């Protein structure tokens, strides 16, 4: 959930801050401002909250490929402001909690996700959330932002598979034995 908050924050913030038309090669001064903003910590409640490094990197990688126009920026900034208003309203209720989503109402969570979706639409990203995974995908299906774990499943234990195979063999053997016993008892 913490990751979802950070992702929504970074998505809305990244897509909203001022950038005029720039070359996709590198970050121009406006995009660098965005990155600097993402890297800072903001006091929120008793703690300083900031964007996790992985989301900062995702946003930066997206900006390295995408050109944002001034018109797009003008569409997205109001969305950012709305998002901040929703989150700041909970400032006094954090009580040391790290996960803002733990205390947000369902309506406000949905409102944030709707804002993220709207901001994503401006830059051609479709933001989806299935209750667990949040993704921002472009028209070609490339997922530029995601809250999936950084560490993936990259294998299996060979002996786990062996146990499953042995269990399957046992099932066949016992089934066959069961049929044999029944047939013999009737004979």
């Amino acid at each position, binding site marked *: 959930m913490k990751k979802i908050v950070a992702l929504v924050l970074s998505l809305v913030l990244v897509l909203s801050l001022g950038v005029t038309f720039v*070359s*996709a*090669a*590198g*970050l121009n001064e406006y995009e660098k401002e965005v990155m600097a903003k993402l890297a800072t910590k903001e006091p929120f409640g008793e703690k300083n909250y900031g964007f*996790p*490094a*992985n*989301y*900062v*990197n*995702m946003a*930066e*990688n997206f900006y*390295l*490929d995408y050109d944002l126009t001034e018109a797009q920026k003008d569409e997205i900034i109001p969305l950012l402001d709305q998002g901040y208003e929703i989150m700041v309203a909970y400032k006094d209720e954090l009580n040391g909690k790290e996960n803002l989503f733990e205390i947000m109402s369902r309506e406000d969570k949905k409102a944030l996700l709707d804002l993220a979706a709207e901001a994503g639409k401006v830059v051609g990203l479709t933001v989806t959330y299935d209750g667990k995974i949040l993704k921002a995908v472009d028209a*070609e*299906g*490339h*997922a*530029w*932002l*995601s809250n*999936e*774990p*950084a*560490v*993936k*499943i*990259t*294998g*299996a*234990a*060979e*002996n*786990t598979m062996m*146990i*499953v195979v042995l*269990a*399957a063999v*046992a*099932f066949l053997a*016992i*089934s*066959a034995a*069961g*049929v044999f016993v*029944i*047939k013999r008892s*009737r004979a």
Partner: protein
Amino acid sequence: MFLSDNQTSNKTKKSRLPEYLLTPVVFAFAIYALVVAIGFTVIGDIPTYLNMAFHDAASKFDDSGVHLDFTPAEDTGATSIPIEQVDFPKPGTVFGKIEIESCGISCKLLYGDDDRSLNIGAGQYIGSSIPGYGKTTLVAGHNTSYFKTLKNIAVGDKVKVTTTYGVYVYEVEARKVYDKNNMKAFDLAKQEENLVLYTCFRRNTSIGRVVDRLYVYCKLVSGPSIIK
């Protein structure tokens, strides 16, 4: 009315039919329940395991057996490259290859580490930076395929990463095993060029999902830094 022997036999066989059908089915359910109970911890990962076993990536191999769907950069010895000359990869695309001679590893490098990408080669996490960007590059590979021999890597071994914009050589500094949920195993905020490879690692687990990861930490030896 008496039944003939034949009719009696047929009747007996027919009356036993439910037994012959029910008994294996009952046993089947019982054993299936046992298998589920044993394999419960891996059930949730079945789609990923199935993806590991079956994928529809078409194979095109060059003479060295490495899948090449990108144009590798030449190793010119340049120490830097302007960012304008870098073609940043899109998620799910091949943009390089990894070669580790000491382990016999040679595979494609994709930007993105979803199931499809990890079936095709090693995948770079999209929350990390591409080689040469001056930050952390986090790359995953399956221990059943492309990173199967990564466990044999040693400190001092060389890792060569050829991309569309430059050739990078890293040297292994350390290898460590951590639980997959340990987010301190790597630092994505590090403002220094470094490569982290990882794959599943079985410590002493005899059953269930593999929860550990083998991390290989590498420092840059040569390759062009991207001028931002």
